[in-house]
């Protein structure tokens, strides 16, 4: 079923995965998708990649968003198909205090580094990732900087992270 | 040199009582000193100026133009600056080797000047193993480079030193095999002897003697470039390695010595190529009778020929990209060495078949070369003409009032 229609994609997902897949949401082609339960994400991704009518062969973006008000961290997957030229968004919500999502690095190699970045900056653990370690920050940096409640450490290896304002006399 | 001293002694210009060997020694040292300080150092320096101006011209920019007229004193300023710079020795380096390496390289380089002819009787020592001595002594440079690479305590320098050593040692083979045909033709290893075997006219030069020596000329030039670590063979120096390969950790005077060795080597390449293949300093004897103006003319001609090849090496450096190490090795061992062997045997066979050479072939090869030069000149003229057509565009200034395009 070659479907460029998000509703059809959603219907296919629903029929395969039932309740693990949420409702179709979105206002424009670039933000239309569904939520997925964390435990099912790998299977959903593999299904979307290998199913003949869907063929989402490219993981265009994998990002994490911190929603302290809802107390979740949302991992957002933008999937794109070069064959059928359609885009679909998957969102996985995980609790903020112990965020863990199965890794999709086995489905697309592009996920390896993207997931490392989400781990580094937001603290989400990706289970099954071949090499989960910090990528942008130094290995021994405390904390996860992109979290809304991140407080910058006073110093790092003896170097102070703030300095006197140069405007003060 | 020897004949000059003999003539001076015979003319009674030398105070009596001094043994002959002392005269020779004094004359060699004096001439050696003059050559080193008046010729080698300035030539190495001036070649850097020539290189930078030529590079600027090729890259559509001006080279150095501030220090002195047209930037001519730039090399002097750079030399003085290098000498005055702080002398840094890496703390974990192998200090005796580190300090010794530049001197080994410079020794190998300067020692080669003993057999480089300048014109007429001007040569420090016309050894009867001239060209072989040259090959042997320039191999000393390999030792110096390896020492520099190892003693720097820097993995990149080590890689650069090893690559350079492999390259120089490998390219000695085709170089040596390429000058052997010339030696066979001339019947002597001595540099002056090889020059005397040729004449002033192009068809008497070794390069046009037979097609095998013609090919040997190109192989020799390419191998000499590789031995001098010049682009396209400059992997040991530049590129992925840090700034200067084996010489990265060197500063100040030691760095200057490495530099000088490289640029002076260009002149040696030119001089040797001219000696072996292009008739050396031979001029038509009718031009000057008296020995002094004759020697001056011979020197001028030799210098011009040798420097032309320096210019070609500089030009190649700024035009061609670099060859990768394994490609370079493949080229040497799989292509140049067999070709050089073929040349050697071909020349031997030619000499047996035509003991006095074939005048017709010589003239034919001369015409070939003239033809190649003509085609090349045609291309140059075409490009110059095309550049002239767009000269208005060359002074294109987007900020000035532009012409309106319809």
């Amino acid at each position: 079923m070659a479907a460029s229609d998000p509703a059809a994609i959603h219907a296919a997902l629903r029929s395969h995965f039932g309740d693990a897949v949420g409702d179709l949401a979105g206002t424009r082609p670039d933000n239309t998708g569904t939520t997925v339960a964390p435990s099912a994400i790998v299977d959903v991704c593999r299904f979307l990649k290998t199913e003949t009518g869907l063929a989402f062969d490219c993981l265009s973006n994998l990002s994490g968003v911190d929603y302290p008000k809802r107390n979740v961290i949302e991992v957002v997957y933008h999937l794109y198909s070069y064959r059928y030229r359609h885009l679909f968004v998957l969102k996985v919500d995980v609790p903020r205090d112990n965020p863990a999502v199965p890794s999709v690095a086995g489905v697309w190699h592009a996920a390896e580094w993207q997931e490392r970045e989400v781990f580094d900056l937001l603290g989400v653990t990706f289970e099954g990732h071949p090499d989960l370690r910090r990528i942008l920050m130094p290995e021994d940096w405390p904390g996860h900087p992109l979290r809304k409640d991140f407080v910058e450490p006073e110093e790092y290896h003896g170097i102070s992270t703030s300095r006197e304002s140069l405007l003060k006399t | 040199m020897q004949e000059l001293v003999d003539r001076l002694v015979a003319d009674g210009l030398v105070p009596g009582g001094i043994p002959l060997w002392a005269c020779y020694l004094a004359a060699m040292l004096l001439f050696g000193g003059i050559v080193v300080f008046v010729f080698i150092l300035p030539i190495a320096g001036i070649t850097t100026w020539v290189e930078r101006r030529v590079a600027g011209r090729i890259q559509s920019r001006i080279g150095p133009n501030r220090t002195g007229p047209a930037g001519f004193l730039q090399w002097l300023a750079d030399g003085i600056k290098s000498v005055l710079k702080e002398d840094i020795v890496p703390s974990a380096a192998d200090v005796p080797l580190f300090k010794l390496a530049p001197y080994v390289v410079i020794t190998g380089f300067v020692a080669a000047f003993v057999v480089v002819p300048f014109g007429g009787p001007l040569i420090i020592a016309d050894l009867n193993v001239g060209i072989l001595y040259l090959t042997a002594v320039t191999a000393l440079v390999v030792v110096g480079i390896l020492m520099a690479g190892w003693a720097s305590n820097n993995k990149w320098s080590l890689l650069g030193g090893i690559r350079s050593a492999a390259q120089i040692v490998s390219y000695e083979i085709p170089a040596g095999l390429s000058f052997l045909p010339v030696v066979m033709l001339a019947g002597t290893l001595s540099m002056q002897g090889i020059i005397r075997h040729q004449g002033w006219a192009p068809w008497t030069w070794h390069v046009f003697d037979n097609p095998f020596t013609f090919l040997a000329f190109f192989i020799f030039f390419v191998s000499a470039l590789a031995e001098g670590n010049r682009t396209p063979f400059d992997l040991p120096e530049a590129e992925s390695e840090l700034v200067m390969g084996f010489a990265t950790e060197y500063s100040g005077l030691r760095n200057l010595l490495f530099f000088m060795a490289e640029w002076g080597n260009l002149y040696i390449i030119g001089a040797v190529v001219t000696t072996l293949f292009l008739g050396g300093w031979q001029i038509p004897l009718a031009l000057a009778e008296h020995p002094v103006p004759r020697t001056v003319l011979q020197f001028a001609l030799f210098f011009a020929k040798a420097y032309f090849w320096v210019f070609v090496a500089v030009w190649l450096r700024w035009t061609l990209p670099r060859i990768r190490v394994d490609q370079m090795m493949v080229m040497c061992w799989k292509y140049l060495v067999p070709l050089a062997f073929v040349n050697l045997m071909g020349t031997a066979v030619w000499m047996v078949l035509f003991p006095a050479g074939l005048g017709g072939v010589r003239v034919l090869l001369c015409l070939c070369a003239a033809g190649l030069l003509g085609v090349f000149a045609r291309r140059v003229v075409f490009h110059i003409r095309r550049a002239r057509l767009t000269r208005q565009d060359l002074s294109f200034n987007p900020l000035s009032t532009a012409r309106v395009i319809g």
Partner: protein
Amino acid sequence: MSLTGFEVEIQREVDGGLSTEDMTLSMGPQHPSTHGVLRFVVRADGEVMKEAIPDIGYLHRSIEKIAEKVGWHGFMPYTDRVDYVAAMFCNQGWAMAGERLAGIEVPKRSEYCRVIAAEFNRIQSHLLSVGSMAMDIGAYTPFTHALREREYINDLIEELCGARLTFNYMRIGGVAWDIPPGWREKALAYVERFEPLIDEYNALIFAYVERFEPLIDEYNALISFNKIYTERLANVAVITAQEAIDYNLVGPNLRGSGVHYDVRRDEPYSVYPELDFEVPVGTGEMGMVGDCFDRYMVRMREMKESCKILRQCLQRLPGGPVVAKVARNFKPPAGDCYVRVESARGDMGWYVVSDGTAFPHRCKIRTGSFAAMSIIQKVSRNLMIADLIAVIASFDLVAPEIDR
């Protein structure tokens, strides 16, 4: 690439024999040939690498977090610094994100100005890329020629928006300044002059010009003295189309592997649907499809296509305002959007989440160089160190894009 004759047998017995180990080199953050502050930990066996493990983060400036602090309009200068070589595209991505979230309609003239500025920037970026690629391979001269051409564009853009590198030209809703008088003619004159020079540049590197002197053509083919360049690049680091898609390579890297995809044509935005241009794809001219040479040639051809686009835009420039009316206290409604622009380095994805306030909730920038870095570890196995340089240059990496 053949290694026959150069492979060295490694002996590992310690007692009574030679013991050798691999060298671990750090192609460190300071290096003349890496494009920015990048580090590779290279495990090498002499010349041949076992692996080159990239280590990034030296240029991480937390730009995404800064977006959450400075607000919608204030973030525009920061977007320049995400990829300072091709800054117009970053500007455009952010502006389009704001416009899409708030549903703002951008005037026609400003769309044309955007495309003109963007295509000039594309030429600028590609010139720098091919120039520095040639320089890394060892030919120093083409770099200076490329920069000479780039200087003219720098001057033109300076007249347009006041800056040569980090432009801050676009605004949410349009562009900052209108095209100055006389600029259009100068820009057209430049495009006319530049297009044939691309061939000349190719000739320096690729020896293919002499169209009107066929004898010289054959002579060139006989000698083809720039074979050195093609030998260095052909068949090095071949990436198949499947791998390219799997690792999320974009732009010339993806097209060099044979995938016919360009965001401008396939997911069109701005006024690209009205323009006529082609999308060059790698065809394995000198080696296999997807080697370094293909990626290089795709960039060269893209410059020509940019010239075509520029000519069309400059001739068709409509009148009108250059910026839509956007509130100074810009508060787009809550929601998220995913904008993709075809930057010089490929499809740049901007995932922007708004929560209805004057400050974005999250801005994630997914860049092409990030993905290209991730494939280097795989591609570098059994390459030589000199090839690693060629590979890095052929991917056209810029460190600020990788680290943000």
